[in-house]
């Protein structure tokens, strides 16, 4: 009697089948290693990127002061508002908690010159999140790096406001804003910036690109944390080294060496923070290396032969477009297959 009652009790205590979980046992079929890191999540990756961006943001705040703060506020506000609005329009639950809109906003702000007027950052943020990401179906579905889509839109629309044109100002720490950017000065007048300035970041330029040191610190952190794969920056830097080296040997000795190419402009910022976007870069290690090589080659092509002083943004966007092709090309051979 008691046992029967107990059994009944137990029966009644059995939880109803959880609708949200699959009812049949799920067998995961995937190549080894099977011990996947369970802590990997979109949010953890985004927090890592935010941590890595700290030196870059700090350096931009130190060099550009009020300008950097203003641009950060505009871009962050814009991308958060755009994410909120467009996700609501799609009738999906809010995705603010995965922090991807924050990362897009900060990378966008760091890629704009501090002197750009408010509407530039705002339009760029809305285009980045709306046309760059949500229209394709949200994070993970987008073909192109959202921040770069937004930047390309305003770059073509408001070329004058994006040129980081210099004027006298007292709001910045090291008189950086009053100079032309090193890339522009070289392209227009053949003026070569000292390497030390490019390394520490006391030059004019887009907010996050000036300091090679800050980009290197953030980039190394991302690679150590395995948030980004080392193959992309490696391929990119290798291509720039080789092409820059050849250009050094072949071109006129005007002092703009391969080291200037690597430390100057947004090359390191692009190599570690922009080209490495896991959504818009290939999946396999070999594919990633090819992708990096392609970005590096296009950057050098644009820098050496186009009218633009810098080519990181267009290089990344162009390689984003061929990422599906690289993915198909770089399918790894399964173990045992001839």
């Amino acid at each position, binding site marked *: 009697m008691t046992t029967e009652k107990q059994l009944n009790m137990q029966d009644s205590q059995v939880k109803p089948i959880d609708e949200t979980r699959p009812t049949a046992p799920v067998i995961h079929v995937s190549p080894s290693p099977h011990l996947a890191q369970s802590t990997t999540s979109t949010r953890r990756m985004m927090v890592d990127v935010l941590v890595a961006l700290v030196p870059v943001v700090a350096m931009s705040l130190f060099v550009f002061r009020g300008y950097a703060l203003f641009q950060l506020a505009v871009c962050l506000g814009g991308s958060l508002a755009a994410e909120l609005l467009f996700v609501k329009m799609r009738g999906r639950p809010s995705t603010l908690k995965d922090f991807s809109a924050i990362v897009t906003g900060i990378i966008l702000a760091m890629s704009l010159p501090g002197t750009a*007027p408010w*509407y530039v950052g705002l*339009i760029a943020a809305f285009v980045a999140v709306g046309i760059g990401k949500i229209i394709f179906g949200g994070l993970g579905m987008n073909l192109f790096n959202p921040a770069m889509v937004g930047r390309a*839109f305003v770059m*073509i*629309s*408001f*070329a004058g*406001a994006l040129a980081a044109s210099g004027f006298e100002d007292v709001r910045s720490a090291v008189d950086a804003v009053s100079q032309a950017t090193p890339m522009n000065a070289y392209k227009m007048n053949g003026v070569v910036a000292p390497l030390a300035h490019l390394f520490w970041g006391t030059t004019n330029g887009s907010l996050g690109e000036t300091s090679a040191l800050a980009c290197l610190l953030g980039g190394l952190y991302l690679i150590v944390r395995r948030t980004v794969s080392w193959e992309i920056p490696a391929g990119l830097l290798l291509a720039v080294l080789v092409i820059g080296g050849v250009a050094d040997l072949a071109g006129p000795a005007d002092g703009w060496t391969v080291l200037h190419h690597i430390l100057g402009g947004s090359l390191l910022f692009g190599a570690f923070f922009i080209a490495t976007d896991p959504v818009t870069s290939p999946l396999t290690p070999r594919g990633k290396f090819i992708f990096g090589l392609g970005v590096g080659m296009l950057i050098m092509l644009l820098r050496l032969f186009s009218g633009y002083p810098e080519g990181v943004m267009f290089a990344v966007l162009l390689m984003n477009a061929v990422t599906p092709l690289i993915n198909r090309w770089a399918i790894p051979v399964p173990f045992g297959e001839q």
Partner: protein
Amino acid sequence: MADQPTATERLIQGILPENPVYRQLLGLCPTLAVTNSLMAAVTMAGAVGFVLLCANVIISLIRDLLKPHLRIVVFTLTIATFVTIADRLLAAYLYQMSKTLGPYIPLIIVNCIIICRCEVVASKQAPIVAAADAIGQSLGFGLALSSIAAIREILGTGALFGLRVMPALWPDWVIMVLPPGAFLTFGLLLGAINWITDKKKA
């Protein structure tokens, strides 16, 4: 042929329910190429409307003489005749606009909207129906072109028909008058129209 739509139905169908650009996705080449200013878009729509009306009526009049294997040739020759007339008329009376539109006026010959209407309506129905259909389709085409052109011109130059409508502070979105602006505007409008239609159905 009792179930063929009447003239009124053809006229109304062409404007929105079977809009040549937003519903049939035909004639996209001029839609993307000449919509950077409203004036150019209206002229283009006018030229297409003239050619479509004349070609539809002529084809409808000779529809009993058409041989199935030669009909496309007859369509093309008829269309080409009226395109040449439109092209020369524009060059004579609207020289600047003719320069602006460039090759897109001669290219009306290969505009799918016209050959599609000749095949679907004019070769099967009476001239009155064919003319009503041509007017409906032309209005639909004009509506589509002007909607895209108005957005692009206002955002890209702050003006409409060349007259400034936005405040002086308005920063021109140069990208909107360049080719990317055409693709973006067309895509977003197409999406918006699909969204509205879906909502109505639901």
